[in-house]
């Protein structure tokens, strides 16, 4: 290498002064042998005040045990040692080197400990190099902080999105149901007329056929044996048409057709009664009729799932909005049918109570766990996957009953079944009824 | 003397061999692990043993234990890279006569042999 003597002590010292790093030299007992300009500026103590003292006298903030261990290990093992601002941000308690713009109060430091030999190669002591990493540290910390904030926002947003998606699905479902209701009512309305005149035509046909057959019978009676011989083609025609069978069959065909038409008429009537699009009026309604028509409407859906037992009590008509009460019954019955398993049983009972009428729908299904029993009337609360049930059913039912000044309660035992009980007063308070009609009647 | 050099590294064995004086290389064998050492011992072929500590199958410590159990009349010089103070201590407790740290030099080996009176 180059000739060491050409670089004087003064040159070295001025270099150590110029570099923006702290440089210390200590012996094995941590006594300071050398300290550079950086150390003086930042500690406020001159080199003369530092040299000759122990590190801990010069810089009381240093953790003594740890520092001695560090110095000792470098001395013994003769290798380098390091500290990083990330684990040990402020070894020396120096003020921040960004006094105006910086957000931190103390200098962040990376330190290097290194063995120093004397001219003969023997161990002289340990050197410390302290570098100011305040800038890097500040930037890093800010980034980390920003990241944390971002993460928080992200999760909050994710939560919000999930809830919005849920609500949207529920809304869609309830809109579908409303649309289906309207469709059903519309279809019913359209079918009504044609069914009407088919019905009356078939009845006329029946009457005419009675007369026609009477006439044929009379003709038969009037003709005698000679007439029959003279017109053998009549017997042949009779055979070909299978007259006896045909006559009997015509009766059966007509009876079946009338039956079929009756059924269609009933279904149409039920649909219209159920959706009751034409009436938002408070009326006196017989709840049993409402229950029956509702059952008819959903019969296809529950007939394979459960046996329905009617335990109707003695009730009188109550003042209510029939279509809405039917909605409640529909919701409760559907729920019951979903809850039951094999040997499913739904019992509908009713009776008078407390100046009003109650209807109970009891099932032997899986029941409702205790901890959610007081949540089931919450809007959007559902235990079913999206698309199956709106989560609005029970909450709507609840609010309908409440608007009727009634009560909707539940008793349930997980594993044994549930019982929903709706109680409705016989009459509504006068003022409320008028107000309600005014608002809802379009 | 019947000499045995035990070490899993052939290079190491050669180094030890090279550092021995001629008088000790007349009746000399090599082994790769402790099991081979015990075989040779039972065949009456070991009086002076140079033993490495880190060997597969049966390491140096286990070999020393085995020899001690049999009250073997073998002079053991441990030659090892494992130079921890506790390792050295244990080696002597188990009956070794000397310890030479790797990398071996001829001087170190000869010094040890002088120290224990073999040379």
């Amino acid at each position: 290498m180059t000739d060491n003597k050409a670089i004087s002590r003064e040159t070295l010292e001025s270099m150590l002064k110029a570099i923006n790093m702290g440089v210390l030299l200590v012996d094995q007992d941590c006594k300071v042998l050398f300290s550079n300009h950086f150390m003086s500026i930042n500690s406020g103590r001159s080199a003369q005040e530092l040299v000759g003292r122990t590190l801990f006298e010069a810089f009381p903030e240093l953790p003594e045990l740890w520092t001695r261990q560090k110095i000792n290990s470098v001395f013994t093992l003769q290798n380098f040692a390091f500290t990083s601002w990330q684990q040990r941000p402020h070894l020396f308690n120096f003020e921040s080197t960004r006094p105006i713009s910086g957000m931190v109060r103390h200098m962040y430091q990376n330190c290097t400990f290194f063995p120093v030999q004397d001219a003969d190669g023997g161990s002289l002591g340990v050197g410390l190099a302290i570098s100011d990493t305040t800038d890097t540290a500040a930037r890093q910390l800010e980034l980390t902080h920003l990241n944390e904030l971002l993460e928080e926002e992200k999760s909050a947003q994710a939560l919000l999105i999930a809830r919005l998606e849920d609500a949207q699905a529920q809304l869609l479902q309830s809109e579908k149901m409303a649309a289906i209701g309207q469709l059903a009512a519309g279809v019913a309305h359209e079918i009504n007329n044609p069914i009407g005149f088919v019905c009356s035509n078939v009845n006329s046909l029946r009457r005419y056929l009675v007369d026609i057959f009477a006439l044929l019978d009379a003709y038969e009676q009037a003709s005698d044996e000679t007439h029959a011989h003279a017109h053998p083609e009549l017997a042949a025609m009779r055979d070909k048409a299978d007259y006896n069978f045909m006559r009997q069959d015509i009766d059966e065909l007509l009876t079946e057709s009338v039956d079929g038409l009756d059924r269609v008429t009933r279904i149409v009537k039920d649909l219209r009664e159920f959706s009751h699009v034409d009436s938002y009026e408070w009326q006196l309604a017989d709840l049993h009729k409402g229950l029956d028509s509702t059952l008819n409407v959903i019969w296809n859906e529950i007939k394979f799932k459960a046996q329905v037992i009617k335990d109707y009590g003695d009730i009188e008509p109550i003042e209510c909005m029939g279509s809405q009460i039917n909605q409640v019954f529909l919701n409760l019955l559907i729920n019951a049918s979903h809850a039951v398993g094999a040997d499913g049983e739904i019992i509908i009972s009713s009776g008078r109570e407390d100046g009003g009428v109650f209807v109970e729908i009891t099932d032997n299904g899986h029941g409702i766990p205790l901890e959610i029993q007081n949540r089931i009337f919450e809007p959007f609360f559902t235990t079913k996957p999206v698309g199956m049930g709106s989560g609005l059913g029970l909450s709507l039912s609840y609010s309908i009953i409440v608007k009727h000044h009634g009560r909707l309660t539940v008793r349930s035992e997980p594993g044994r079944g549930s019982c929903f009980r709706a109680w409705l007063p016989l009459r509504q308070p006068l003022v409320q009824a008028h107000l309600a009609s005014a608002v809802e009647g379009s | 003397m019947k000499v045995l050099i035990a070490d899993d590294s052939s290079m190491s064995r050669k180094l030890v061999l090279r550092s021995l004086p001629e008088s000790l290389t007349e009746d000399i064998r090599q082994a790769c692990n402790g099991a081979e050492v015990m075989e040779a011992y039972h065949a009456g072929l070991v009086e002076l043993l140079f033993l490495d500590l880190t060997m597969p199958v049966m390491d140096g410590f286990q070999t020393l234990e085995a020899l001690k159990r049999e009250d073997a009349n073998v002079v053991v010089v441990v030659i090892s890279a494992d130079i921890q103070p506790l390792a050295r201590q244990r080696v002597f407790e188990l009956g070794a006569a000397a310890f030479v740290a790797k990398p071996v030099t001829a001087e170190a080996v000869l010094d040890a042999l002088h120290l224990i009176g073999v040379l």
Partner: protein
Amino acid sequence: METLAALTEDQRDALQELMNIAMGQAAERLALLTNTMVTLSVPFIHPLIREQNKLSIPEHLRRRFMIVTRQSFLGELRGEVFVCFGSMGADKLAELLGYNDDGPAQQEELMLDVTNILSGACISGLARQVAIQVSYDAPSILVHREEPTNALDELNLNEHLAMVLEIRFEVQAHQFSCDLLICITERTAGVVIRAIDRLLYEL
């Protein structure tokens, strides 16, 4: 990889022995500092399988470590040491090394210290035997994971690796263990091999 695979039996043996000695020195230092007994494994030298710039870590090193530190060595011998720390339980060890707090920063500092001591000793030990000089940079934490996924999978190779040496240290008394992966670049691995050849020649 090609370089390593092309080593002769004698060369491999010599390299193994060199690492053995370097490890012994590393263990002695750790033992001196902590006043305990350190267990050494036989150094395992294996060629590294490289798939599209990613290291393929041997199975027994997967799923065990959670923190990986690194430290570079520079000079005539060039590369990086990765230290994989498994279960900690290094509280006593911390005390012995002069730490008396128990926070995550202290744990990290402890691991960085251990990294520095072990890498320094192993590499210096090796360098001394092949008569070359090395210097070091500060150790740092490479990966810090809670889940036991393979942290080393995230390593991206940007230089050919000729040699990887695997060493396991255990301080049983304190349930402390770590695995060192010493990775030497292809270019400077030749220095080691030439030194080995010289040694073998002298034999």
